[in-house]
């Protein structure tokens, strides 16, 4: 398969791993955070930890939109959908638990819940069901926010009255800042998010290099992409440099996608603050729908209960999200909290570090004689 197989080519992968070993040496330990949940998933799916030297530690970052969404927002969205509203959302959201169960569980009890592949599909549902209201439960970073924006612009142009968006879009930079401000955090470098950067470009990361003196390489999602990014980070660290580099040039333009940024500016404005699961309230870290588009804002259009749910005390999602704890070091991991019955959100999405670790790794870690397998 083109554009995939080239980046999984065993010989190139072994060569790149050799280069990593040579650069990393043995004297010191390197802690690199992959910001994006897609990277976390890829690391486990491709078994990259098996082939990296032991002194390169990958720390899973906050870039999983489902994982950082507070449970109260899910309850709010589902509360709106009680009143004869079609609840439309990405598949990612469907198993995320609210206090009364996940969207899928609500569907099993009779709520009209639809899985859509894009916000445009939700708008199509509104056109096809003129006697019903369709609410799109929007999640995601700058990766998905432009398509939500364009869909609202389309809805406005077509004067569609039975469509709204419950907006949970968040922005990546404040989350990285919160991680860096956290006192218990010691990181050497960042593997920068690939998909988000297709929209925002590479410039917004420059402060990480300049002010925090941490190298960051925007990376693709194939095994070779990630390994190359690690090589680039090691080269910078060895040379005492800290700059922003773009490994994912085939997709990410340095300046980002101006049309997408324009669409976001047309529809959204920054919220003064927003709650992140595990990280708490972060100022100017999320988007709301601006007044021009308020007719499509589910939070304006419907009574929103404004539910706030605190995470179970025993769950250590925040520590795992910040990379202070490994998933299996949480007290609930694999016991009370599993993919079938997630307590914390990191166990829900396959991009969440706990679910990825649980699905692909934890029994492997516990067993003996693994070396005879590879």
């Amino acid at each position: 398969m083109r554009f995939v197989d080239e980046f999984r080519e065993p010989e190139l992968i072994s060569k790149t791993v050799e280069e990593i070993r040579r650069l990393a040496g043995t004297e010191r330990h390197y802690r690199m955070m992959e910001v994006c949940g897609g990277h976390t998933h890829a690391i486990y799916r491709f078994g990259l930890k098996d082939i990296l030297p032991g002194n390169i530690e990958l720390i899973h970052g906050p870039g999983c939109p489902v994982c950082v969404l507070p449970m109260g927002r899910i309850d709010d969205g589902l509360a709106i959908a009680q009143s004869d509203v079609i609840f439309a959302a990405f598949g990612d959201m469907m198993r995320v638990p609210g206090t009364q169960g996940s969207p899928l569980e609500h569907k099993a009890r009779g709520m009209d819940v639809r899985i859509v592949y894009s916000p445009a599909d939700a708008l199509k549902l509104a056109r096809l069901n003129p006697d019903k209201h369709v609410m799109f439960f929007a999640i995601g970073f700058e990766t998905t926010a432009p398509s939500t924006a364009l869909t609202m612009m389309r809805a406005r142009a077509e004067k569609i009255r039975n469509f709204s968006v419950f907006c949970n879009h968040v922005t990546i930079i404040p989350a990285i800042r919160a991680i860096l401000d956290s006192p218990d955090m010691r990181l050497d470098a960042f593997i920068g998010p690939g998909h988000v950067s297709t929209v925002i470009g590479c410039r917004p990361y420059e402060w990480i290099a300049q002010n925090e003196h941490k190298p960051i390489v925007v990376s693709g999602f194939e095994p070779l992409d990630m390994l190359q990014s690690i090589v680039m980070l090691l080269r910078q660290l060895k040379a005492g440099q800290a700059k922003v580099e773009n490994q994912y040039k085939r997709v990410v333009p340095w300046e980002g996608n101006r049309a997408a940024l324009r669409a976001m500016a047309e529809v959204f404005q920054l919220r003064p603050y927003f709650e992140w699961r595990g990280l708490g309230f972060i100022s100017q870290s999320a988007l709301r729908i601006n007044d021009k588009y308020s007719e499509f804002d589910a939070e304006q259009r419907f009574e929103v209960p404004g539910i706030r749910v605190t995470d179970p005390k025993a769950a250590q999602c925040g520590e795992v999200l910040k990379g202070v704890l490994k998933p299996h070091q949480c007290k609930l991991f694999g016991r009370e909290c599993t993919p079938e019955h997630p307590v914390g959100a990191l166990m829900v999405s396959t991009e969440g570090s706990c679910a990825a670790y649980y699905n692909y790794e934890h029994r492997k870690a516990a067993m003996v004689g693994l070396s005879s397998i590879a």
Partner: protein
Amino acid sequence: MLPESAPTRFRDPQIEMAHGAGGKASRKLVEGLFAPLLFGPAPGPLGDAALVDINGTPVAITTDSFVVKPLSFPGGSIGELAVNGTVNDLAVAGAKAEALVVTYVLEAGLPTPVLEAEVRAMAKAARDAGVRIAAGDTKVVEHGKADHLYITTTGIGPVLAGVSLDPRSVRLGDKILLSGPLGDHGITILLARGELDLEADLRSDTRSVLPLVEALVHAAAPGIRWMRDPTRGGAATSLNELARDCGLGMVLFEDQIPVRNTVRGACELLGLDPLHIANEGQFLAVVAPEYADAAWNALRLAPGGNKARVIGEVREQPAGTVLVTTLYGGSRIVDMLVGDPLPRIC
């Protein structure tokens, strides 16, 4: 003599869709509620079909209900699935379907041409598979109380000579064979629902696997330890069940697992694993190493078996687990499916 019931272990407060998806939740329901109450405390491994002894002749019996949306899709339809699915459940129990009985649950308002088309599809599939539809029953429920049409088929047939299957007979070094590419059916259905704006030139793999099973049995009967058709929950779920039942590790070689490019592409795009996607015309077999070559040759030379491969082998570690290894030395655990496969976007 009927077995005494055993205590139940199923604690979920209500039935969710995931309990029917064929993965972990389904297994919990079967093992935690049905098996203890119906089969007693020690039911043994639960296979695709049960073996009963009728006057000294081993006979396999199985039943399956078919609820599929949409009713027809590229490459097949619910009627065809209802016949092939039960024929296949018997085939992977090492048995040749002799007769089926069928139950229709119809929703009032179902257009007759739709029903007729499905009954015709069943008749054709039965002729193709060489099985007789011997009896049937029909129920009609109110409009809105069912989704068009549900079909249940129950099949019975004698076990093929020389075949003895048991997951507990699987040994270290056994080879894992797969009859053909994974994921065609599940991805075809996902796309045919029309909810995703994706199109691909892809057809369901629905077919009777009996001819392939017969070819395998003919070539390697004494070496066949276990077979399973990886329907809902995919190959990962079938192999996880085997790993648990025999206590050994199933190690798969990723580069040997046949998956069509269209299926791979759709899975990449939607964040799905082909090992979790449903199939309706493939089966997995575990074969003793000394029979592996004969088994593979028999499969790939049989009609429809040219994509068969040895995809892995049985090892001591990771015990009770399925591990996929890559050409470049990485590996990952592949668990049973949890709930239905959902597309992942953001």
